């Protein structure tokens, strides 16, 4: 005897577009890699903790191997010393992948306009969503996550993203 959906549908077939069904899966099971370097990482800890609970968006499976992740969260200041590491981690992530620059430092260097700080990680890797704040509140991080979900909805699986990107390390 058929159970669940099969009981209702029987031998019928449902049609959809490939993009729709794949994107539906992707947007609701983002696996983040937290590249936490500074203060913003503490706010990510709050985002993951009970009160704000990132798992409501299906993104609680934090991976510490870039090869298992598809969402790179850059939380905090990136210095020139760190830049090659960030780039390597980004390259190790399999496609498709999305990047959020969390906080002023990751977005633009923030208050650190000096000899050691990269003036925004978009000089190294492509970024999809930027969050302001120093550090941003957990709600802002969740908002960025929803923006990524919206963006995924409009994408097509047949196209390579960011293949023409050139940063200062390329």
């Amino acid at each position, binding site marked *: 005897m058929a159970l669940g959906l099969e009981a209702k549908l029987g031998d019928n077939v449902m049609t959809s577009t490939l993009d729709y069904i794949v994107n539906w899966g992707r947007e609701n099971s983002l696996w983040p890699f937290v590249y936490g370097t500074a203060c913003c990482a503490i706010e990510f800890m709050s985002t993951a903790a009970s009160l704000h609970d990132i798992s409501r968006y299906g993104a609680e499976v934090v991976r510490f191997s870039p090869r298992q992740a598809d969402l790179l969260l850059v939380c905090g200041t990136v210095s020139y010393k*760190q830049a090659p590491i960030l780039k390597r981690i980004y390259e190790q992530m399999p496609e498709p992948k999305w990047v959020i620059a969390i906080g002023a430092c990751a977005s633009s260097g923030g208050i650190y306009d000096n*000899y*050691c700080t990269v003036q925004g990680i978009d000089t190294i890797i492509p970024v999809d969503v930027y969050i302001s704040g120093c550090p941003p509140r957990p709600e802002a991080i969740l908002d960025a996550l929803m923006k990524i979900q919206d963006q995924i909805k409009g994408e097509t699986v047949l196209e390579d993203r960011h293949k023409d990107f050139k940063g200062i390390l390329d």
Partner: protein
Amino acid sequence: MNATALEKFQAAFPDATCKVVLESVVINVQPDKLESTLAGLKNDPAFNCGLLLDVTGIDYKDYPETTDTRFYVVYTVRNWQDNLLVQVRTPVVDPEKGIPTATHLFDSALWGEREVWDQYGINFHNHPDLRRILNHYQFEGHPLRKDYDIRKGQVCIGNDSLEKEIRARLAINGVAESTMKDINTEIMFLNLGPSHPATHGAIRILTALDGETIMANVNEIGYLHRGFEKTSENLTYNQIIPLTDRLNYCSSMMNNIAYVKAVESWLGVEITERAQFMRVVLSEFYRVLDHLVCIAANMVDMGGLTNYWYLYNEKEAAYDFISRLTGARLTSSFTRIGGMYRDFYEGWESDLELHLRDIEKGIGDSIKLVLKNRIVHDRTKDVCVLSAEDALSFGFTGPTLRASGVPFDLRKDAPYYNYESFDFDVPVGSKGDIYDRIMIRFEEMFQSIRIIRQAMKSIPDGSVFIEDSQIVLPPKADVYNNIEGLANHFKLIFEGVKTPAGEWYDSFEAANGELGFHFVSDGSGRPYKLKVRPPCFYIMGGFHKMVEGNMIADAVINLGSINIIGGELDR
């Protein structure tokens, strides 16, 4: 510091000139006498300064008053038993030739002098491992020199392999070349970090393993070097306060307080009673928060995730509570030179008490899981032991030093803000293992809560600002309604609070240990030089001493137990 103490120093070091600055004795010596002076300070029982707190350089290139040489190096040492703080200054005629090293006297000079070389390009003879520490290995020039442009960034491609360093470390530990190659005992190199869940930030830990046992360990830091010190030279004293938030971002307000305390001590400002009590209450509250995060993360490393929820949720609640007071969850920027940003809001006291009770409950729940837990005991007892002598030699302070059995706490030994009138204990460890480090943090939270309750009982009413138009901004009503107020406001904002020319060091017991600030002022509203003495930096410098001979998994929880915060470590 009284006159007889100064005479004692002058008699012991006849070739040097000694003077008293604030609480410290400053000794000027020529480089050829530097070694003997430092050795005398360390070994002479009359001084017994066994703790080298910090090493820093000064570049006098743009200093208005001419000095005999462009560069100076300053060693700050302390006798923790008798509250004796000594700074030894020596001129550097030629930075290429440099001055003799102090690494054979103090282990903390290993990293301290490396930083001076990295930032100022001053050489140290016979330093065993003089290379860059904060900047990357491809960096050219020395950023804290006055002729280095602050915006001149240098792109780094690739990573330093550290192979030479780890092999040198293996040789020091007596691991023979044949052992490394033997099929049964072959050494494996394992790299943790810079981006690794166990490193709590960006630190690189390179280990040489025999099986799972660490034979040698070398660490690389500087991944979060954000140029705090160079940036500060271009900002007014009050503008630097937001930067101090981001040193130890787990206890931002303590950095705010430590920083303004250092400036006020040089200005000779005595803040109001109420502001002093507020600073005690808030710094103790932040000490609790800092320890909560440290233990929570440490327990996660050990596999006890439930502790994380018990401890971190209280901190999360406290963030919202703090944001009601300061407007920000993490980065408080709540102090100003001469007082506090604003007074407590109405109802603060009852809110505080509620949060303290919640925190006590959270800690209690967590302790119940830990105290008689066999796994925690097995994993932490007698693991990564550090003796008191080693801890002092590596410049440890704070809970990590006290875990090794040294009862040094600035709140007791050099009290400020009426700490002598509060009834609290300083917990001390017996072994110096990970267990002690965790338990001391637990106990310190209870002691801090004790202090908060006493302080809230006796906090006086009154203003939170001193009345001095040269230091504190005028009330808004004056700024908008009369020209004097407006001019006063403009002058303070544009020129900053002017400090008398000179140099001084002031310290504060932060959550991780002694947080010190070394200033050089040229009399303007911006510091000529500002050096932070971060507790983490020197603790990380002794990390290899703790983990060598232990298992790789122990190194991970040891790193959690010493609470390394990147912002403070690399500045």
